[in-house]
């Protein structure tokens, strides 16, 4: 799975081996620039949205935090519970 920025679009490429099997595109022309940050087990996608007030230079950050492997942890713990 690759998230990649191309001009004013954020592409989500789902690949199987070398072949891209799924491709999604998100329009981020008004939400760029995009950055990815690593924050102690969390991956953060940072976008900058247009300010509310016209004439304001500061663009508020929009953060999307996601815990890496959260579902896997739950699965493993559930599996160990089942085993015991």
């Amino acid at each position: 799975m690759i998230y990649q920025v191309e001009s004013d679009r954020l592409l989500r490429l789902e690949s199987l081996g070398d072949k891209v099997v799924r491709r999604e595109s998100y329009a981020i022309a008004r939400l760029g620039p995009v950055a990815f940050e690593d924050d102690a087990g969390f991956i953060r996608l940072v976008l900058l949205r247009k300010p509310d007030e016209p004439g304001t230079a500061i663009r508020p950050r929009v953060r999307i935090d996601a815990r890496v492997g959260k579902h896997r942890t739950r699965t493993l713990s559930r599996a160990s519970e089942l085993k015991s």
Partner: protein
Amino acid sequence: MIQDRTSLMIRRRHRRRGYGLLELTLSVILLLAAMMMMVKMLGWVASERRAAERRQWAAQELSNAMERIVSEPFERVTTERASAVLADVPLYQALVGPEWEANVTDDSSSGAPARRGQPSAPLEDAGWRVGLSGPTQRLGFQGQGQGEDRVLKATNRTRRRGFTLFEIILVVAGAATLVATCAMLLHVLLRLDTVARSHLNDASTVGRLARQFREDVRTAASADPRTGANPGAEAHPDRAGRPHGDLPG
């Protein structure tokens, strides 16, 4: 004497040309009131839209907080811990004077298998008819001598054919002002609509992206965010080591 009085009454009755100052003033006041109401309504719509948008962004920040709270070990999820996480959420960037409260409740008494943390933050932040006179009534007054002449003169004097240049200029100026005002209001409305639509699109895009991104990262075994901003920023949530059927139901 009677004829004189009658002719005077007729003259008065026919002296009506256009509208009085009082009528004009009332019309202008009503028009101004209607315009002010329209402007107020537009302002209200704009402020409501901004408030709704702020709530959406605040909800996004709360989702981030929830992501952190639910990734804590089960035993450590308490009201205090949830409050501490929520305290770090920059809600003040999205809302004006935000207030929040975290409550972690134990559902075990109700037979539910797990305890659920549910931070709740109030996301409240803090829209003439002008009646012209009908056809001139012809008076069937029949007088005699001098009185009849006066009546005829009065009738001739009040006979109205067309409008004066001044009246036409006034009407045209009034109509032009009204059209300009309507055009201005229409322009403001269209601009509001365009801005609202683009903001709605942004919020919708971020919502879809957040759902998909979280899902991908949660199911990934590891992630490699290649640091850097636009262009070419990349993240690789790697699903390679993912066992089969590990997605929660």
